[in-house]
């Protein structure tokens, strides 16, 4: 008897694992998409996989696994939980059991204290099933409630392969990182059809909520991948920097020297404070070869954020990029920094600030966009971070830009400077103009006026001389550029024992 029962079971399992009808598999191929179970094969290290809820909605007959695979497997040797939409089953839409399965895998991840990965490709709720899956205690709302609760406890990663529509768009929004497949992934609250019907706007899906738009304009996407394989590999690489949960240490790898083509720092950073240079060159000269994983590469490029390894140990880098918009901090760059700092601090990844910043942007456009509260958000996140944090003043740090880049007053473990660094309320040109504006105007002879300006600038330079600042203990060290990597490695080795409790209050009133 058992033999015949086993055969029946095996048939049912095989059938369910095939997903939806052949025509929907054909459609996947046309869209350059992989079947959900092939995605899981690429994501996991090997065959090891435990799946629950395979028989969800089996009685319906045509809804295999109710359109979602929930499983546990290994990524980089670490156990992880996964929920993965199956777009061959009713376009990956959510019924009541779909929602229940997602909630359960979240609960499992919470109990196991392991990362949770969301492979999203879903048309959203099945409106016909709304009573069962939308409004109740264990309706879709609970998925988002759980995501918020899990945030900062375990890493939550979203890979977006297709649409993530309406309420479903909040799954990526509550994840730590969103990796989007170019051309196929999209996020939106209202579809183009709805936008035309409700507000009269005519727009394409790509313009409205495409992957490239979200990764470069809205900031809802963190990594733009060329295809599904690249997206899944990005998630694996990203997770290699993270511990299973907030109470464990980030994983270490073998130390590597910087890439061979790394330039000498003295040739990267120009002496002229106003000239542009590429901060990526400096990052490459400091970090282990091929270890830099950039986050939000296409968004607010005047600030670089990314994970890397220094001597095999993970570090989160926040660096001004003078090559883009002069490295000035804007609304979006402040927002980008705040988010990244919070991510690293949540999971014990030390922070490295590389400062070369003329300040926050000024003018009507940014004031109207609320640059003050966005700047406050960055400063608040940075101040509250208790992981080891080092601020390196690479060339200049003016005004609130100095504060935002973790300078002395914000309890970095060290604020160190490269020779040639300038730290001031503002640069010499602006300062002399601000203080002596009336006097300058009053001098009629142009040559005499210029001489006066030059003299005052020189005096100002002397006031902000780096050795004077070091003498007054404003910077903790002036480090030779050739020794910067070594100095940072030594310092992080020392600071790893740091234990700091920022405050015993419930939480701050976030300036967002």
């Amino acid at each position: 008897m058992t033999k015949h029962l086993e055969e029946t079971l095996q048939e049912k399992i095989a059938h369910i694992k095939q997903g939806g009808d052949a025509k929907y598999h054909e459609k996947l191929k046309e869209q350059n998409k992989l079947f959900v179970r092939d995605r899981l094969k690429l994501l996991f290290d090997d065959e090891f996989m435990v799946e629950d809820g395979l028989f969800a909605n089996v009685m319906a007959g045509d809804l295999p696994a109710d359109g979602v695979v929930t499983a546990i497997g290994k990524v980089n040797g670490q156990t992880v939980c996964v929920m993965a939409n199956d777009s061959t089953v009713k376009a990956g839409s959510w019924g009541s059991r779909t929602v229940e399965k997602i909630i359960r895998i979240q609960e499992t991840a919470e109990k196991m204290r392991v990362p949770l990965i969301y492979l999203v490709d879903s048309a959203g709720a099945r409106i016909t099933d709304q009573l069962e899956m939308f409004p109740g205690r264990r309706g879709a709302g609970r998925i988002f409630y759980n995501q918020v609760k899990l945030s900062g406890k375990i890493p939550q990663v979203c890979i977006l392969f297709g649409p993530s529509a309406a309420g479903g768009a909040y799954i990526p929004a509550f994840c730590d990182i969103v990796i989007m497949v170019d051309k196929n992934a999209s996020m939106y609250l209202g579809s183009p059809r709805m936008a035309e019907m409700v507000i009269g706007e005519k727009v394409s899906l790509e313009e409205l909520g495409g992957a490239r738009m979200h990764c470069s304009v809205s900031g809802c996407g963190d990594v733009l991948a060329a295809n599904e394989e690249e997206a899944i590999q990005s998630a694996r690489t990203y997770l290699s920097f993270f511990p299973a949960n907030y109470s464990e240490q980030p994983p270490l790898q073998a130390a590597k020297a910087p890439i061979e083509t790394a330039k000498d720092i003295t040739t990267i950073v120009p002496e002229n404070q106003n000239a542009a240079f590429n901060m990526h060159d400096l990052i490459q000269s400091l970090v282990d070869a091929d270890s830099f994983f950039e986050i939000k590469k296409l968004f607010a490029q005047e600030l670089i954020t990314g994970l890397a390894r220094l001597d095999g140990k993970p570090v989160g880098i926040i660096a001004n990029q003078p090559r883009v918009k002069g490295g000035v901090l804007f609304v979006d760059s402040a927002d980008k920094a705040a988010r990244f700092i919070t991510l690293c601090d949540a999971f014990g990844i030390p922070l490295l600030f590389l400062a070369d910043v003329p300040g926050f942007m000024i003018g009507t456009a940014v004031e109207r966009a609320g640059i003050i509260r966005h700047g406050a958000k960055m400063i608040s996140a940075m101040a509250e971070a208790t992981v080891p944090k080092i601020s390196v003043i690479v060339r200049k740090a003016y005004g609130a830009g100095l504060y935002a880049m973790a300078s002395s007053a914000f309890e970095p473990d060290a604020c160190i400077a490269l020779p040639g660094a300038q730290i001031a309320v503002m640069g010499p040109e602006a300062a002399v103009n601000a203080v002596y504006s009336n006097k300058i105007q009053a001098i009629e002879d142009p040559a005499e006026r210029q001489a006066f300006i030059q003299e005052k600038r020189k005096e100002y330079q002397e006031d902000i001389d780096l050795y004077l600042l070091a003498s007054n203990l404003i910077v903790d060290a002036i480090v030779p550029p050739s020794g910067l990597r070594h100095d940072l490695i030594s310092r992080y080795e020392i600071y790893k024992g740091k234990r700091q409790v920022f405050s015993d209050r419930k939480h701050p009133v976030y300036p967002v």
Partner: protein
Amino acid sequence: MKQVAANMAGTVISVLVQPGDTISEGQDVIVLESMKMEVPVQSMEAGKVVEVKANIGDFVNDGDIIVVLE
């Protein structure tokens, strides 16, 4: 038609391309001075320059078209 727009408000201090030039993606086309910094503006696309709309000394705003490509 492809265009290159200023990415922040500032004053044009040098123009690096002229009509007829073929430029590559990511190439600097103009340098602005803004916030006392020299800010190179890159083209997001490759192409042939048809028109340069900004002259040295001009004030440009974020989003203003500075170079038109074929």
